[in-house]
């Protein structure tokens, strides 16, 4: 098994409380399923979509947020286990983030 990081990107959360509720339940079902099948190494953490700095050099060049568009902002990450990149991608395809106009970046953890 190899390890992969999922980087989640999407615009803001769903608007109404009920939409939030429905979306959250979908995420929980998705995570539980990954976990039950032995693919989830770490649920991961949310990242504050509204704040962040990019430190560009040691001279102190700093910019607000790394991305021009809100849909490009990384809002969280998880770590999963899969045989290979193909399987990790296939698992990512079932993520509920696509219902909200988001995307998942799948990056293999580099091992020697």
């Amino acid at each position, binding site marked *: 098994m190899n390890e992969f990081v999922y980087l989640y990107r999407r615009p803001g*959360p769903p*608007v*109404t*409380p*009920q939409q939030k509720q429905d979306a959250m339940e979908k995420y929980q079902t998705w995570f539980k399923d990954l976990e039950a099948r032995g693919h989830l190494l770490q649920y*991961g953490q*949310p990242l504050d979509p509204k704040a962040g700095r990019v430190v560009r050099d040691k001279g102190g060049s700093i910019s607000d947020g790394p991305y021009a568009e809100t849909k490009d902002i990384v809002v*969280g990450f998880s770590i999963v286990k899969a045989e290979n990149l193909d399987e990790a991608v296939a698992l990512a395809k079932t993520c509920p983030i696509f219902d909200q106009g988001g995307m998942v970046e799948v990056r293999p953890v580099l091992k020697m």
Partner: protein
Amino acid sequence: MKPDGALFRREAARLLATLTRAFGVENLALAEDVVQETLAVAFEAWIYQGVPEHYSALLTTAAKNRALDAFRRERTARRFAPELRRFIESEWTLRSGLDALFLPDALKDDELRMMFSCCHPRLHEDVQVALVLHMLCALGVDEIASAFLVSPAAIEKRLSRGKRTLAQSKRLFDLTAEDFAPRLTAVHRALYLLFSEGYHGASSEAVIRVDLCREALRLVRLLVGHDSSATPATHALAALMCLHGARLPGRADEAGQLRPLVEQDRSRWDTTLLTEGFFHLDRSAEGELLTEYHVEAGIAAQHASAGSVKGTSWGEIVRLYDVLMKIRPSPVVALNRAMAIAEFEGPERGLAAIAMIDGVQRLAGYPFHPAAVAELELRRGRPLVAKKYFELAKDLARNEGERRFLEQRVKECGRTSSS
């Protein structure tokens, strides 16, 4: 809907009521922003962690901290609620002032005060109901629009009119105010309309309709839980909702198809709600005043306590409809009365009563008017006439459920007439 499937909505409504009190009604939009931000952060975190056990307390603390930030940021730019102004004057007292506002005892009445505020006499009933759904049930514009089969733009308009009126009030409605009684009447009416929309309404989605009934029931329970609003009329309204609500599971079959009362599976009725309903019915009898809710609850009780359609005391139901026609006459009530007469004295008498309905033109476009005639014609053995009326009714159907139901009835007439 799952048991905690409305957690975000419940919490949004609760926080909004309290923050509106904390900020003052004129800062309603600011309160809405704080609620929105608080829930957004909770959403981001709970995706990974799941909902924590003490979510309600956590949300309260988070909202309080955001409110504190908002006060610091806006205290020179805005006018805040009078009771807060003295706290805002110094940073030192700000947090303790805010803490006091969020104490459990203070929180208890906020939703109720918000409910009374939404039922402002200057607002049309439609606006009041939309406002209640938005502020106390935290439904979004699109969600309200689809529940009422009205365009989102129309709902948007109702809400902004409602919020403008709300924001002009100095504070949330005071539960000890002199005009408490008339305002309570308006609250009853709004909750009744909310429930009716769910129970009889035209929205095609059964889920939305059950939700509306459930929300109306939750809000009426808030009224019942407070001394000053727990009047006999409130109990009557609660009884009516419980007794009708108990029959909701039997009203549509697994496919969401409406079933006539005759064919309903009574074993699917919700017995806990029935018990609650009869409890409220008893309590409703404690006053002198007889409201339309008393009478409607009485009718619902007759249906709920009967073991079958045949075993129902139709004579008593006709009598109750007679009373209802005196208190709140309407062509729909008259139509229901005619159907009860038909059960009691035969379809011919029912048809005669339908023919005598005052203001029958107001039933134009109401599919259950021709459908009622059809049912009775069918029962007196004239399937061809019945079929014609069912077809008329089918063309008036307001949603897929009604259409399927009436189509089925048309077909059944065909079968009867050919055999």
